[in-house]
């Protein structure tokens, strides 16, 4: 068939090109003859491919694993759920302005820079209705939205009369425990300086969240009320530093960035100043906690975490292990296939 077509074509092409108006174009594309690569899953490709991938993965895995192992992490639960724990007394919701203290010991130097996190468990910041409950325009300093917050904030948009600023459930539920870290130096507790700057995303601090362009800031909040759970209005979050006040308060920013999973930690401070720039020296420490945030009602847990970081972030053995496992599986499969191929010859060889 094909042959027939071929010879006919040549002949007529010359003679009657114009007459054959309906002749299809003879291009590789229209005739579906584009040069193509047909990857065949043949032994020659599959086995070496698997081995190479496997070995590469194992290599990466080892590197990751070692990196991860070098990261130091220290976690302390201070929920006060157990009666014998230090913060048990504070876990009672009736207790106001309760302060508890957590003592701990660092046996060897905690390499710096040390990141100081607080962590919450069983806390659903990713709850859908919770996540929606904010007003981005308001948070970017739009004064109109101060007066009439977005519907998305409902029911935390007004207290019935006045608008709530910042509105919404996220802001309302802002974590408000505070920590002070002391190091026992020669019997006295020396306050470890905690750096609260730059713990939030740079873009959040500089671009996304804006205070209204009103000075003093307080005037902008005229006619509004603070969120129900808040002890202080937004413009008093950090009165000492106007650049850390209002909506661009770093703690607020960190909180507003909702955690992906119900067990999460959030960066509280960095320990990177003065003597502690190289880390926390070995010794006894005590952590003074202003225990304000109730979590026991929903079986939540609170913790503090000290961790240093590597290039790949915090400590996480998983990725290294995953690479190792997948890499070895690749190698294993290539061996299996090798055996299979050896037993059943593949057709091409016939």
């Amino acid at each position, binding site marked *: 068939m094909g042959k027939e077509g071929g010879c006919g074509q040549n002949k007529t092409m010359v003679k009657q090109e114009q007459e054959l108006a309906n002749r299809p174009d003879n291009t590789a594309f229209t005739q579906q003859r584009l040069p193509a*690569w047909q990857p065949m899953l043949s032994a020659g490709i599959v086995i070496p491919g698997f081995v190479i991938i496997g070995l590469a993965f194992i290599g990466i895995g080892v590197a990751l694993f070692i990196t991860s192992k070098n990261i130091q992490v220290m976690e302390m639960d201070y929920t006060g759920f157990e009666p014998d724990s230090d913060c048990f007394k504070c876990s009672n919701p009736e207790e106001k302005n309760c302060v508890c203290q957590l003592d701990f010991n660092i046996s060897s130097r905690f390499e710096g820079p040390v990141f100081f996190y607080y962590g919450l468990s069983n806390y659903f910041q990713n709850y859908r209705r919770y996540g929606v409950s904010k007003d981005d325009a308001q948070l970017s300093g739009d004064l109109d939205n101060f007066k009439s917050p977005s519907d998305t904030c409902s029911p935390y948009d007004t207290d019935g009369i006045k608008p709530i600023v910042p509105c919404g459930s996220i802001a309302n539920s802002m974590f408000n425990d505070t920590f002070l870290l002391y190091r026992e130096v020669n019997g006295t507790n020396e306050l470890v300086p905690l750096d609260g700057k730059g713990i939030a995303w740079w873009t959040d601090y500089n671009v996304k969240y804006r205070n209204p362009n009103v000075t003093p800031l307080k005037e902008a909040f005229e006619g509004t009320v603070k969120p129900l759970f808040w002890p202080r209005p937004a413009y008093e979050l950090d009165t000492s530093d106007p650049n850390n006040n209002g909506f661009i308060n770093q703690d607020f920013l960190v909180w507003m960035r909702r955690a992906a999973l119900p067990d999460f930690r959030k960066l509280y401070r960095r320990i990177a100043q003065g003597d502690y720039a190289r880390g926390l020296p070995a010794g006894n420490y005590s952590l003074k906690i202003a225990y304000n945030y109730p979590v026991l009602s929903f079986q939540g847990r609170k913790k503090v975490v000290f961790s240093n970081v590597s290039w790949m972030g915090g400590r996480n053995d998983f990725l290294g292990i995953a690479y190792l496992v997948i890499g070895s599986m690749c190698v294993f499969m290539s061996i299996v296939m090798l055996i299979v191929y050896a037993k059943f010859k593949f057709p091409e060889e016939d």
Partner: protein
Amino acid sequence: MRITERRQRGRSKKKPKETRTVRVHTGHEHNPNRHYANNRIKTTKYTVLSFLPKNLFEQFHRFANVYFVFIALLNFVPVVNAFQPELALAPVVFILSVTAIKDLWEDYRRHRSDTEINHMDCLVYSRAERRYVERFWKEVQVGDFIRLRCNEILPADVLLLSSSDPDRLCHLETATLDGETNLKQRQVVRSFFDLDCEFDPLKFNGIIECEKPNNDLNRFRGYILHRSGSRDALYKDNLLLRGCTVRNTEEAVGIVIYAGHETKAMLNNNGPRYKRSKLERQMNVHVFWCVVILLLMCLFAAIGHGLWVFQYGDKRPVFDVLSPEGAELSPVVAAVYLFLTLIIVFQVLIPISLFVSIEIVKVCQVFFIHQDQDLYDEDSDSRLQCRALNITEDLGQTQYVFSDKTGTLTENKMVFRRCTVAGVEYSHDANARRLALYQEVDSEEEEVPPPGGSLRRDSSSSQQSSRVVLRSLSTKTHRRTGSRADAKRASILSKHTAFSSPMEKDVTPDPQLLDKVNECGGQMDFMRFHGQPVSQLPSDLADIMDFFMALTVCNTVVVSSPNQPRQKVRMRLESKSPVKTIEDFIKRFTPSRLTSGSSSSSSSSLATSRSSNRGCSGLLSSPSAESTLAKLQEEQAALGSAPPRYDGTPRSPEDGELRYEAESPDEAALVYAARAYKCSLVGRLPDQVTVELPHLGKLSFELLHTLGFDSTRKRMSVVVRHPLTDQITVYTKGADSVIMDLIKPPDTGRRQKKLVLRTQNYLNLYAADGLRTLCIAKKVLSKEQYACWLQRHLEAETAIQGREELLFDSALRLETNLQLLGATGIEDRLQDGVPETIASLRQAGLQIWVLTGDKQETAVNVAYACKLLDPEEEILTLNADSHVSVYPPSSSSPHSAAFTVHRLGLVIDGRTLAYALDQSLEDRFLAVARSCRSVLCCRSTPLQKSTVVKLVRNKLKVMTLAIGDGANDVSMIQVADVGVGISGQEGMQAVMASDFALPRFRYLQKLLLVHGHWSYSRLANMILFFFYKNAMFVALVFWYQFYCGFSGSAMIDQWYLIFFNLMFSAFPQLVTGTLDKDVSAETLQQLPQLYMSGQNSEEYKPYMFWMNMIDAFYQSLVCFFIPYFAYADSDVDVFTWGTPITTLALLTILVHLGIETRTWTWMNCLSISFSVSLFFTVSLCYNASCPSCFSPSNPYWSMQRLLQDPLFYLLCVLTPVAALLPRYFYRACQGTLFPSPVQVGRQLDKLPSETRRNILNLGGVEAGSAVRPVPHFLSLGTPSPEGPDENHQRAGLHAVDATEKDTLPYTKDAAKLPPEPRPRPPGDAEPRPPGDDEPRPPGDDEPRPPGDDEPRPPGDDEPRPPGDDEPRPPGDDEPRPPGDDEPRPPGDDEPRPPGDDEPRPPGDDEPRPPGDDEPWPPGDDEPRPPGDDEPRPPGDDEPRPPGDDEPRPPGDDEPRPPGDDEPRPPGDDERPHETSEALKTSAMSASSRAASSPRPPSQAASVQLPLPPDGDAQRVRYCRNSDHAVRPAARTQTDAVL
């Protein structure tokens, strides 16, 4: 006049409106026809205003769209909304607008073409200006008078009122309407016929009552009511249809009857149909399953959420959000809300873009199919047309092919091959050789130098290979039109005349017959000269004369001259209309004439025509015969036509130049054949046919009536007044089955009876040879008879109600008691590549059924020729007479088991089919048919064809494809899942009804095997991929629900969620779905077995859907949990965590697609990299665009930060590998360990071309074998067409022998039927001595009821009781020693010269008991050497090689003296003949005829007819095969005559 009109209008208003009344538009007041549609056409669907609502309304007919809109609207409900409502609308709006834009564009194109058409000009009569003025088409209104000029296109349906043509004709070209290229004649309405002066519209005062607009092109009825009160009937012959072109007529005037959308052309114009492919149906099931999965997921999550809310009890956690009213949501309410929310979130599972993507891919596939050069036919400069855009993949899943025969398998180029006249056969060997040459030239095309001038083909005089002549002169005319180099020119040459390829036109006359014609002409000339009545001619010569007259006259061929193809040749000498009224009749047939020719054996002669003062022919119309004769002679002299001699006297130049335009190719073939014998049709007018005869010159037949062909009567007749005898003669031409029934009972004369028997015999022979047979008969009417008939005929003609029926009855009354003249055999050659195509389609596992209207023998032989039936097969023939006999009494018998005999072919005829299609039997019929390898339904009506297709499609639940070319295939094409039309010579109706239109049958191979396979495999893979992709993506969100309190939140940003399908992952799969080739086109064609993967839906099986779903869930688990653990216990926020997951999912999906992509072109690479970069670009832009928008996600700068995170890259490397490892491993192992055939094919593709060719050749050989349709290395995973079990069974059944076959239930029950003749006892024939035939007294045959012998003529089959084979001793059939039949007693042959082609009745071979043959020495058959048969394998028939004939000594036929037949004893021939009437009775008295089992003395030399004349094909085949002693396998043919 106006007053009358008004009055009449008033009157007609009261009438119920069943008809349309058209009045003249006076121009002074309201147009009386204003309520009829005007001529403006508007094919657009929309207007500017209605576009949006109407288009949306249409789009919402698709359920999916409604669903997506519902979901989008759900988003506007605050309590359940999941996304930004506007955003959620985006995909739906996008999908809807894509479709809307497509629709709009299409509509715009329609609008433009409408405008163009509406603004064409035509001449409309303006009453105000009293002249014709130019108007746009759209301004034409019903009732307007229109003047048409030559070559103008008709703007509306117009009633022809006046024509410049002296015959008051208007010629129309209807190619745009029905594709027929010949001219149609239309006549002026009768009352305007005699109008001498120019038609004046002002004087027209009639009111036209006619039918309401309808779409029947071939029907128009009505009448004109004149002011005088007289009525004038209107016919379809008076109506000029919109869209046709006026030809040959300078000017015509008509009144518009139907305009615009009410014209028949517009009413016939249906748009493309919407079909849903099997794959889509399957897909919809899975879409449904997706919905179920979706609901389950939502339900699960809703319950989970309810519990989650419930666990907190009254203590609301700080993160809980109260309802807007501040109230707490109860867990149940929260769950219900959540359920709805999740439906929105998970909506992606139902792939919104799937439908659009499929449509896009299909359009691309259609484009590629359309572009394929291999499907382009140079001859006609046409390519494949895809008329249905949405069933391309069905082409890859077809299981049953139903094919028409004529024009589909064959070329529909009718070539006159042979004829029998007055019981004598003229084999036209030279003609056969000539045809063989065409074949040869065609096949050796390359050697032929470019063709030069045209050579007139002379008759057989030059015996020395005309091939040499051909080569040296290499004339164009000698080359088949099929040959490509010439094709164009030939088609240009014949553009104006259909059916006029040289092959069809040039008929080499049989010398013997030519002699006789000459002799006859001479004698007539002599007699005329001596004043003897022409009827005194010897009856055989008279028959010959009549035969050619009939060929020439009995048709509707229009004569034109080649210089101006459209200029009809005028031979009119006197103008007169056909007899239309009784008065006219009386006037024209004076009493004296009525008495003159009362008897049919008439004494009427030329002399009697003396009394005629108005002859029908101008030549004979002069007062006396003498002067007529003188005139004749003058004319003859003037023409200079010497007495024609058969050996090549050039025809008169004029004669040679005429062109014939026929409505059907058969007609043209017959006219050309007659012309070869110097009986040329030189002119045809409505009332007169002019014929030029040898010696006699031009004769004009007065054409009294033409009773056109219809498929019910299967015949046509003309009533003429014979110019020589002046008798009223009816010439009838039609299917042999019907004509034979109408022949005068044989008791009228021994000669006639003998003639009938002989002719029947030859007919069978022709049919056996695959020729189309037509019988020619005549009848002489006495004037009284005619008058009597005419009276009722005229009544019928003028009847308004039921005119068709009355005319039909009238025709039936006339066509009785015919006198048989002869029969013709016309060959319809197979198209190129048909056997190969069928073979390869069959290898591809397609069941091929041929449904044809042809007679059984013809069909069977064509089936053999095109390898549909295999000589190795056993043929099961079902010919039943009644309902009961089809019905096997043993209804409970598990006959289906009995039928799984190895390779069975089923042949069933129309009548039996009617029974078989009965409700009670259809299951049985199907059970039988299913187990047969091929099925051949003969004599089936269009309705039966479609019923069969419908039955198979519905009952067997298979994919059917119907292919055909003619109007009779339309219903079948429409019923089948895939309808394919052949854009051949038979008009466009099949094409219009089809989904795909092919130029040639053989293109079906590539269309199905390659494009069908590709389309199917591409779409199947794409759909599966779609499901996978969406499930995988949605599952990610689902897993997240476990970590967000089942609250319906998503870590994937809503933008990604919504646009993932539409943008990020859409292109690569579209490209793959469009371009991917699982196996190369070459391999697919060389290994048709690969097609089975589509038939068995192997690319898309339900389990694959579920496997894909499972894989999707697995992959999503990997893509979810690797990031989950990688980010566990970190300070990651929702979307910083979700974005990598999205990225990973995208990468995984793309790599997955990469694994599934079989061929990588730059387009694939481009699309994948485009997709990835699009994702990153979009997300980078999106994440940088607006810091405070896109609540709730606010993904500001997320992607930017991620890109700085090494963890992100580590995940991107790890996750896709981990996710795809199992699939990749599976693919790798499967491709090596248990590859599917398709994979093997792909591996073959990779091999170097030579190796591949070798393997394929190897495979091809094996593929041909029955048991293993797959080369051994393919067989591993390849199911046989019927599945492995059956395959196995088959192999086992390979050796089943005849006895087992005989237990077939049908045959079994047949045995219970009345005694039947066939089981002739072995000794039965013995009494017949070897020399038995010729001395046998004539009476010998008479007692034998005709129809006895198996030479079953068409009608014969039914009466033959079934079981007729079974009692036959097994040894009789099947172990029959080779040469069993051939050995014919020498004495048997001797009386007849060898090479005499007289048909040997086939039945005669087979039923003959062995004992019968034994006395004959085996070697005696030298006239028909065994080798003669053997070289003719089934496929051999059609391109019958010249060699087949050549070995025959040249003198074989020609030297045969004219009187060859006569010396033969009369009884000799009769035996095999049988009249059809006789057949009817034959069954009953069959027993008596056993003795006669006549074998006509060896006509064995008939080289090209190795088939026995009776055309009992299957039996013949059997005989032939038995020559191949190599194949001992059971080969009885089971004549289950039910």
